[in-house]
């Protein structure tokens, strides 16, 4: 099977599944945002849990699994549904083997966690229950590692970015330092994958720490996805959670001499296409007077030929909303103008009324939308018809 990135329509939130081109395919899930409405069969919100499960493999015991789960940062719109749909706790205690497939919780073979991101998030707000559960699970696995227990599927953990005060110094075997490149997924080197960890930045002076915390410090990864063993460089996928302007400025200052580190074929527009990733100004207050932060823009402007920028957001309107912000979209489109790229929004694919998972296929010729959007008759026939009848709706 070809490599693929699937962006699920989860409103203003993130949920993306990376499938590698190996066989059997390795799956890396970045964030989840399975809202209650999506789980409610009577609610028209897209059932993204079913969409996700349909794309996941089953192990020898019939359990759905992801090889790795990355939480970019612990905001609600990046981890909602974690406890409901994923098995947290010792894999030996997996309780769902006798349940029907659609009720079985998803096994996370390896959890990718960043203690610095958690630390900064905790400074600014109270974590939601799913975020706390993620943190507990990551800590449980780290503790297990410290105790020297065997590294098995469902118990692995990878620490992305060193923690403060040398807390991760003893965890070298499961630690990726910021700036490092790694190739292993679920403890195994993978010939179809490579990623460079660009964020979170390590512990900074306190003033900077406050700023980074306010700027939604997130795990920033630039993944290199192969379409085949011979085409290692088929797609660079840059994903950065909700990272905002100050973080991008620092990234640019750090990498402006080697901008290829930030180059992408597919960019998940940070913070759901927020203006705050590109500017310190308020979009709603200043509208077109708001100024772009040049360094942040430069960091985000390393679009390769024909690049795609994906906003994981509700449909983008010409209004005061932020995120998603129409001005941010315009700025991204201007970035894409020279390399001849395209801007897409998960809430608008294939149409605004009934969005579906957006699949980006990684081919030898680069990243492409797997299927053209269905419009007109094809879209109507494929979707449930609006309610018909004579009863009066409440």
């Amino acid at each position, binding site marked *: 099977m070809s490599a693929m990135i699937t962006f699920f329509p989860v409103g203003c939130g993130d949920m993306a599944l990376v499938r590698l081109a190996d066989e059997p395919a390795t799956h890396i899930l970045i964030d989840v945002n399975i809202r209650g409405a999506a789980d409610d069969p009577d609610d028209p919100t897209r059932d993204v849990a079913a969409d996700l499960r349909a794309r996941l493999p089953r192990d020898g015991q019939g359990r759905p699994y992801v090889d790795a789960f990355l939480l970019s940062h612990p905001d609600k719109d990046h981890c909602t549904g974690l406890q409901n749909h994923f098995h947290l706790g010792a894999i030996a205690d997996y309780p769902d083997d006798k349940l029907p497939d659609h009720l079985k919780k998803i096994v996370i073979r390896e959890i990718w966690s960043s203690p610095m991101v958690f630390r900064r998030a905790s400074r600014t707000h109270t974590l939601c229950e799913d975020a706390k559960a993620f943190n507990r699970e990551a800590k449980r696995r780290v503790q297990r590692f410290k105790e020297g227990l065997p590294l098995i599927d469902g118990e692995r953990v990878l620490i992305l970015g060193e923690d403060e005060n040398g807390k991760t110094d003893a965890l070298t075997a499961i630690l990726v330092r910021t700036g490092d490149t790694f190739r292993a997924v679920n403890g195994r080197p993978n010939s179809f994958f490579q990623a460079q960890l660009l964020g979170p930045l390590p512990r900074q002076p306190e003033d900077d720490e406050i700023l980074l915390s306010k700027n939604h410090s997130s795990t920033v990864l630039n993944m290199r996805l192969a379409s085949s063993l011979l085409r290692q460089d088929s797609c660079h996928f840059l994903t950065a959670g909700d990272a905002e302007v100050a973080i991008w400025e620092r990234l640019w200052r750090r990498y402006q001499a080697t901008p290829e580190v930030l180059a992408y*074929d597919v960019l998940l527009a940070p913070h759901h296409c927020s203006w705050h990733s590109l500017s310190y100004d308020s979009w709603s207050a200043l509208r077109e007077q708001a100024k772009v932060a040049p360094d942040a823009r430069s960091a985000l402007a390393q679009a390769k030929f024909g690049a795609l920028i994906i906003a994981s957001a509700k449909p983008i309107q010409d209004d005061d909303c932020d995120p998603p912000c129409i001005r941010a979209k315009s700025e991204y489109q201007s970035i894409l103008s020279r390399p*001849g790229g*395209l801007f897409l929004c998960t809430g*608008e694919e294939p149409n605004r009324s009934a969005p579906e998972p957006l699949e980006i296929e990684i081919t030898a010729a680069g990243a*492409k*939308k*797997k299927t053209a959007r269905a*419009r007109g008759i094809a879209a109507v026939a494929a979707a449930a018809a609006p309610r018909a009848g004579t009863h009066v709706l409440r």
Partner: protein
Amino acid sequence: MCFVEWGELIPGATADQRQEPQLQALLRACGEHPDMEVVELRRVPGDALGLAIVVDVGDGTVAPGNAVGILRRERLALVYRPAAAMPFEVRPLRRDFPETLHQHSVAADEPRSLCLYDQPWSELERSWTAGKFLTRVLQWLERTADGSLHADDQALEQLFYDAGVHLVLPSVFRGVTALPNQPLRLRLAHQGPPHTTLIGSFGSDPGLASPGLPFVPLLCEVPGVAHPPIQSPPRSLGELQARLEQAGSSLFPALTDAIRQASKGGLTPARDSANAHVLLLVRVPRLRAGDVERVDVVGFLLQGDIAGLGLCLGVLHQVQPGGAAFAFTTMQSEPQAPGATVEAWRSLALDPIHIRYRVDNRTARLLSGLASLDEGPRGVLAGLGALGSALAELWAREGWGRWDLVDPDIVEPHNVVRHLARDPHIGLPKVAVVKALTQDILGEPCDTEAIQASANAQDHAALQRALAGADLLVDATTTLDVPRDWSATDMPRTASVFLTPSGRGSVLLLEDRFRAIRMAALEAQYYRAVLREPWGAVHLRPQGAVRVGAGCRDRSFVISAAQIVLHAALLDQAIQRSVANDAASIHAWTVDPNTGAVAFHQAPVFEVCQQTRSGWTIYWDLGLESDLASMRNGALPSETGGILLGVVDHKLHTIHLVEACPAPSDSQATPHDFIRGTQGVVETRQACLDRTQGQVDYVGEWHSHPPGVGATPSPTDAELLGQLACALVADGVPSVMVIAGAHGEVSVSLGQVL
């Protein structure tokens, strides 16, 4: 990015300002489409009514590194030309937009044109909408980029666009690698849309109205070409060579070799080269994944002759000015392509010609979808009436079989209503008319003999030759005598076809390949089905006839040409299907006059037994024996019996037993004797006569013997047979007595008053 400035910009144009509804709809659809961005409106050069919506297009399905060179976003002119044959066209405006498969031919200085549809506008406009058009455009870009627009099972595209001149060559040119040694002539059949058509014929072809222009074909085969984008046809020899070279092929040395071959012994250049033409046929093997998928033949007309071409290419040389030109081969050097020293050949003008072929029999079979591409039988078709002539035409069109035609009749005035013949053919022999009307349907001459004779004539040498040389005889005479006479003679396998008198039904009787069950026996078994099956009730019932002359027999059934064509079509396919099998068959079709539904009926065919008694041959079949055994067993321990029905032919002295009827209800039966009653017997006989148009009648009696007793007639039985014979002498017919004994034994006796 560089774009072509094509046409004149219309500043500030919006959908609302445009009057044309279709353009308005397209403009609106572009504006609403999430993957399109309207840039501007332009006037289309060279078309006063033509307008173009310039859009930037891209939906993400084009991979940026595609080998073809389509970009993620392309600038396209969506052209609307209301007066054009195809009002909507797409022109990519990027200056370096790649040459790909599925593009239209355009002038050199114009933007390329995408080929989106394979239907004409007249068909397309019924389902065309602006939205679907935009979807199509996006699909073209996506599929061209990933190489899937041209499906794997789709034929490779032709090398060059159609130049608008078609030359139809004799079918022998199809697939030839060497040219037939006959003079060819070219005549203009049609000039103007849809395309100019030239017909190339051998000078000896009959019926040529004008001698036409003589031309000399020159054939060469160049190295194979894979799947380059279709190109405009070359207009000079140099252009042709350049296009072939671009595709990895070359005219040389194939062309020079062909000229050398044609000039063996020397060629004298034509004095008047303006009236001489060479038809250059270049065979180009087309490769898919390295294998030859087909061989294209591209054609060009060159003014002049082969000698002139050879001299120009430096292949031929003249010893004396004006004398014959020869090819000299130098021992020391390899044959070479014309080099830089001889460049005049490059500017030799070519008229590109789209080569077509007249249809030969094999191609006709292929196009007709015949199950087998075998040439079909060497046959005799007897009876060229309405049905026979329709079958002859169908088989000629399908290229199936070679048929000698046999019929004694001439075309009568009333025949034209449903016969292949037309009014001017009245009075001409039907065989001659049908031969004339069918022999030039295809482009391959058909070897047909027209024999004006009755198909059962004994003393007609040509007929006997035709019958003896055939491997299938088809009797469409709608007579009883021909199939029965053929049945009595050693002949090839025979099929008999006819329409019922009403025109609503048709029948095919086909002997088995080894003629173990001959036509007369099949006729009897067919009658049994007519007597027994529900469809037989009205099957042979006449619908009415009209007088077509003064004689008693000058009557014609009321049947339309449509009914003839319908049944001819059914029989045509049934014969082709059935002759592929060895077995005999009895098939019938009935058309419901109210709905047009056709019902198919198939009767079982049984092996035939025969016995000759006193100069008469009596035939019956295992189906009848089985019926007798069954009725005997059902009546045991008593005897049983009934009347026998059959077909008597007093010319051939044959009796075919058709049916043994069950015992009438008033019969008297004991374990030792049987007296057949009379209840319903007259009615049964009459119904039988009605259903079979008098062909099947009472021929005698049957009865059974009790267990332990064979089928040998007892003295009582002999007495019965004698009584029957005496009674039937009044009608001059013999009587048959059949006895069904134990263990399936059957005896057949004939009673005849001498």
